[in-house]
């Protein structure tokens, strides 16, 4: 395998609170290959956004990285001084959030914002940067880009704004884009357009995408591989078809069965009893054990690591070597 573009090793994010330290991301590890789309999926509170924010050094205090490493092309970036991280953000790692107005300043014309970003990272002069800005807007599908470049964000629809944010994220030719729920606020027809656009940009610009979403359908359409998060940990990770079609972790299996689809014929949806634990009372051992139909003694005391299960890795003791031998 080629060297990973991004490598996360045992990442831990903590919040000190009055009632003690909360661990919101707990020992998360994964790689993203150049040009790959890695989906990160899970229910709200699973730790998806914090994982993304930790990678680019945008954790809001008092949240902090309490352990682990983040490597970009083999170079550690989690321990860089703030100035060093700021240079990487925007230049080598672009960002897209659910609300386009997180990235766009409503008081400035979109052209000004694009040109500023391009000049900051590339050293082009103003005229060159403007040409590049127009080219980027054309690339992300803004009609009449030469005229629209002088419009303000409020003059764009939600879908068009998200296209502008993608142009902004691409401005400095990054190697990776971290997109946190980029289509969640959009209607399905516009969402489909943005998904198609992201796939094309990923291909044509050879940029990798870490796609964070709670929507498994979006992942199915877009991602090459997917990591399923539960209670701050990765429950299962693997090729998207395998995780969706042949899940091995009991949580992933339950999750897939609970999603209504356009083709399934089941009268009832699979039900996982209970709900994801709060950070203040994550069970010992496997975090899923109180809800798991296959729980056994070991699950309550020892935390499972990611174990090979056919083509995926599942954090579940059912796939421990001794058990598989007897199964």
């Amino acid at each position, binding site marked *: 395998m080629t060297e990973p573009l991004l490598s996360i090793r045992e990442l831990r994010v903590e919040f000190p609170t009055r009632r003690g330290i909360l661990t919101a991301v707990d020992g998360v590890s994964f790689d993203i290959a150049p040009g790959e789309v890695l989906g990160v999926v899970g229910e709200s509170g699973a730790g998806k956004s914090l994982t993304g924010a930790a990678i680019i050094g945008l954790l809001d205090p008092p949240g902090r990285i309490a352990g682990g490493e983040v490597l970009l092309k083999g170079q550690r970036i989690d321990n860089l001084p703030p100035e060093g991280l700021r240079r990487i953000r925007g230049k080598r790692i672009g960002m897209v959030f659910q609300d386009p107005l997180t990235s766009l300043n409503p008081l400035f014309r979109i052209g000004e914002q694009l040109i500023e970003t391009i000049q900051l990272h590339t050293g082009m002069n103003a005229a060159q940067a403007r040409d590049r800005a127009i080219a980027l807007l054309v690339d992300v599908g803004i009609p009449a880009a030469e005229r629209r470049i002088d419009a303000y964000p409020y003059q764009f629809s939600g879908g068009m704004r998200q296209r502008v944010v993608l142009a902004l994220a691409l401005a400095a030719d990054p190697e990776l884009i971290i997109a946190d729920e980029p289509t969640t606020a959009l209607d*399905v*027809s516009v*969402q489909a357009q943005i998904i*198609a656009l992201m796939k094309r940009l990923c291909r044509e610009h050879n940029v990798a995408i870490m796609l964070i979403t709670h929507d498994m359908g979006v992942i*199915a359409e877009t991602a090459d591989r997917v990591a399923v998060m539960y209670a701050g940990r990765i429950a299962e990770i693997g090729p998207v078809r395998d995780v969706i079609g042949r899940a091995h972790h009991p949580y992933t299996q*339950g999750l897939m069965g*609970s999603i209504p689809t*356009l083709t399934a014929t089941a*009268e009832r949806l699979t*039900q996982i009893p209970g709900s994801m634990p709060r950070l203040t009372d994550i069970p010992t051992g496997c975090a899923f054990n109180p809800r798991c139909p296959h729980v056994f003694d070991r699950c309550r005391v020892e935390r499972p690591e990611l174990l090979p299960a056919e083509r995926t890795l599942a954090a579940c003791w059912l796939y421990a070597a001794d058990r598989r031998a007897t199964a």
Partner: protein
Amino acid sequence: MSTAIVEQPNEVFAGTAGPLVKVDHLTCVFDVSRPWLERTLAGAPKQMLTAVADLSFEIARRETFALVGESGSGKSTVARMVVGLLSPTAGQVTIDGVSMSDPRLAAAREKLRRRIQMIFQDPFASLNPRWRVDRIVAEPIRAFGITRNDAEVEARVSELLKLVRLDPADGRKYPHEFSGGQRQRIAIARALSANPEFIVCDEPTSALDVSVQAQILNLMRDLQDRLGLTYLFISHNLAVVRHMATRIGVMYLGRLVEVAPARDIFAHPRHPYTRMLLDAVPDLAMAGRQRKPVDGETPNPIAPPPGCPFHPRCPFAAERCRTERPHAIVTGSVSVACHAVEEGRI
């Protein structure tokens, strides 16, 4: 004993012939002009927004009729008119033969109110945060005078909490002590407490995680079977609608473009907008699929396109579509408003 009160299906009305709900040419126009003085100074005209236009459909007893469409298509406005929270600009809603707007039927309508309930997307906003759960659930029982005996009310609340799979002891807690899914259960228990037969559900699971959504959708189906409920189920999520509905109406810019049995609409979508919607939904079975998304976004409802409102985005649009509004053509159990379908072009 108390179980009997709660679980008594609505036999009384189940025998009556005809649809339970009839919606005729329902229209709602909002005045969205700037304030009068400002408008006069700027010489700006009045601005009217047609949120719902000439909508007609029927809901049979014990069925789930779903309205689906993208945001702003008018679904919630229909819901509010159907339960009587909003007066229609034109047209009317008739429930069990009683017009919801005829002033002469005020007394009959008052009786009808108990039989109609609503569940909203945000269960938190609809639950009084300062009331304990048992008081919240009991409120309709007292308001509609179903019983005033405290012991009976208490027994009934505890049955209702069990019915929605909560612990009767939860009645002593406040809404903020519950998760989103549990709050939606509380809202359902309250909606059921006056023994209604028709429940309007506006995006009841849209704020919930998928695993919690599955619990609520399963619960709603169980309750329908046990209590003989009729649902108007509103959602922007086609997969959810497919799972729940017997019949589906697809809305675009305030209009119904297609109404058909759920099975039909997913197997053979007829209206070009329905086809586009179905093609746009990301689906689990679609990993690795390539497709061509439709261009454009929903136009401004203040100035909708003339003729067929979908024509600027429609791959089948012809000259006629740009000037003449298509009317619903009924064939069997399916109703479609599209010139191309009428002409047999698609």
